């Protein structure tokens, strides 16, 4: 029923490593190394990964802040991998981004009002109209006109991030790339921002690509989840499935490492298996399965053969040799919350169902 808004196909972004007196290129940092996914209109896709996984690079390549080394980016049916000036203009009308650091993404010398104004100003929206729209936007992000003439240093982190969001939605984009929008914020503020994003999505029919290192954050927020490691997606599928039965050893490790606040939640985590060692440098990606150096299940095959995606029952695609062979014995399940969610869905349809898992396919 739904139509695909963004599709990324085998995307690659390599940064050259230059060395020597003459700056010859001697190698590549494979920041993004063959990433594919697609997002349907109105959906939220979460891209999970630790530092160095290339998740931010994916976003910056999509919006054209980096040029793709390989692969294709389709936006609304159009190939925008290497956009023409015209395409770039159109893309910037329709794709916007919210950055991680709310402080550094606001110009310290501009007032809140003039910061929000920029996208409209560039598009030649007349001044009175802009003023009106800014007030509207401030309302949308639950601030008010008192903030118009404040400078960023007068605002708290959460308020700054609201301003960033207001600027991003000022020209009514279709797709919003959220690059760790809450990771610099305190948890009580984070909850507010996530709530705001959920509201905006519903009201403005936005599509989100939500990038984060915090798995627990996307549990209720994303329809689809993809887990990245060293420039490659290791597992992707419906969020509910990924949490209910994490198939890739890395997804399991990520999930099990989350510190939680109740016994009940502990039971939702897979068996605790701290990973060995550290994340290798993306300059020096291990052969075969790139996760094998830290994997508790490593086999001989893992060293030589790069695993391809395997379809699993239930939906997610997984890159793992071991998952095939030993699935039943080694991988335990965590409780499925589908049941609760479903109840939530039906019981509170129009009203306060805002936090429930959105399951579009039903």
């Amino acid at each position, binding site marked *: 029923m739904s139509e695909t808004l963004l599709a990324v196909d085998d995307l690659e972004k390599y*940064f*050259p*490593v*230059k*060395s*020597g*007196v003459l*700056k010859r290129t001697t190698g590549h940092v494979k920041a993004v190394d063959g990433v594919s996914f697609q997002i349907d209109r109105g959906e939220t896709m979460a891209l999970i990964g630790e530092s160095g996984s290339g998740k931010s690079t994916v976003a910056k390549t999509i919006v054209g802040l980096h040029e793709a080394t390989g692969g294709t980016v389709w936006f609304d049916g159009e190939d925008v991998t290497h956009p023409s000036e015209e395409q770039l203009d159109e893309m910037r009308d329709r794709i916007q981004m919210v950055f991680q650091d709310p402080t550094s993404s606001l110009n310290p010398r501009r007032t809140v009002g003039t910061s929000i104004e920029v996208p409209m100003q560039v598009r030649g929206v007349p001044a009175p109209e802009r003023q009106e729209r800014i007030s509207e936007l401030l309302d949308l992000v639950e601030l008010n006109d008192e903030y118009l003439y404040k400078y960023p240093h007068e605002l708290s982190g959460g308020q700054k991030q609201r301003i960033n969001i207001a600027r991003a939605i000022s020209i009514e984009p279709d797709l919003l790339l959220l690059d760790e929008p809450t990771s610099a914020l305190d948890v009580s503020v984070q909850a507010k921002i996530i709530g705001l994003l959920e509201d905006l999505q519903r009201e403005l029919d936005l599509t989100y690509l939500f990038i984060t290192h915090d798995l627990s954050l996307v549990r209720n927020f994303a329809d689809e989840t993809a887990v990245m490691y060293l420039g490659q997606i290791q597992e992707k599928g419906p969020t509910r499935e990924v949490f209910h039965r994490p198939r890739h050893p890395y997804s399991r490790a990520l999930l099990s490492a989350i510190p939680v606040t109740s016994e009940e939640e502990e039971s939702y985590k897979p068996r605790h298996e701290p990973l060995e060692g550290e994340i290798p440098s993306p300059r020096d990606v291990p052969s075969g399965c790139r996760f094998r150096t830290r994997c508790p299940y490593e086999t001989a095959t893992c060293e030589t053969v790069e695993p391809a995606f395997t379809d699993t029952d239930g939906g997610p695609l997984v890159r793992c040799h071991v998952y095939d062979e030993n699935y039943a014995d080694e991988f335990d399940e965590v409780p499925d919350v589908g049941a609760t969610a479903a109840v939530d869905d039906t019981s509170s349809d129009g009203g306060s169902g805002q936090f429930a898992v959105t399951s579009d396919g039903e």
Partner: protein
Amino acid sequence: MKYWQYLVRRLTGGVVSLLGLSIIIFGVSRILPGNPARMALGAMASEKQVRELSREMGLTDPLWQQYVQYMQGLLTGDLGQSLETKREVATDIAQYLPATLELITVAMMFTVVFGIPLGVIAAQNKDGAVDHATRLVAFFSVSVPGFFIGVMFQLIFGYLLEWFPITGRLASEYSVDRETGFLLVDTLAAGQVDAHLNVWLHLLLPALALSMAGMGQVMRITRSSMIDVQDQDYVAAERGFGLPSWLVTYKYTLKNAFVPTLTILGLLYASLLGNAFLIEVVFSWPGLALYGVTAVMNNDFNAVVGVTMTIGVAFVSINFVIDVLLGRVDPRIRLQVEEAT
């Protein structure tokens, strides 16, 4: 990229700068109004004389040929003849350079020896009386014209108190074999202790006057970088582990704080060279700068080019040395270079 490769790149950059400098100087001499031959001969010379000299100097050749010739000269150390001394400019420079280097080296020594400790002390007494006092000293030292301080030194310590000689490098009653041209070295090598002391007497006032401006800058930059470093987590951690506080200050803090100071020293070297032109005039110091000023006043163009290029080379080399030192003091710089792209 290895650090040595980075250094080679920097050095290449320096050489390119020198090349640019040579073009500027060449351009100034040939493109701007004023015929060098006319300048050499003076206003009284006839047109014919000027034309002849022009041909002799190659001024009638195409510009690029002139430049090639000029560069050939520069590279082989043939800087032409000085119109004033009637000797090879290279010979003149070889004679006058050591006096300037000696002066600058001692001045630099004063700058570092007084500037850095005062900066450290100011930082440790931040906002205290000592800090304010050093701030005043620093203001004074960067605001007072070097030549004026030289004149004041002469007036007070020379004329009034008669503690120090006011001109020259060595009293006439001493004679020294000028082996290296550095009188401090030559007198010691010859075992003439009296003469050595006399050289110091002559050096002290001009070197102090010369070091003044830099001292204030070094003091302030050391102070501010010490304060920056003192606020770092690692310094708090070192104090937290109960290490002796002198160790934290002079070993762990100062080494980090030294990096910006070292960077400034490169620029300072340039300002020392510049100020030397004034100080040498005040103290009649027989150095390169005084030679240069005389050359400028006499339109002795070959000499001006020689002096300018020598100073350019000195500047590029000193900055290279500082790059090397920076890599030694701060492994981050070295490692960053080796990591980055």
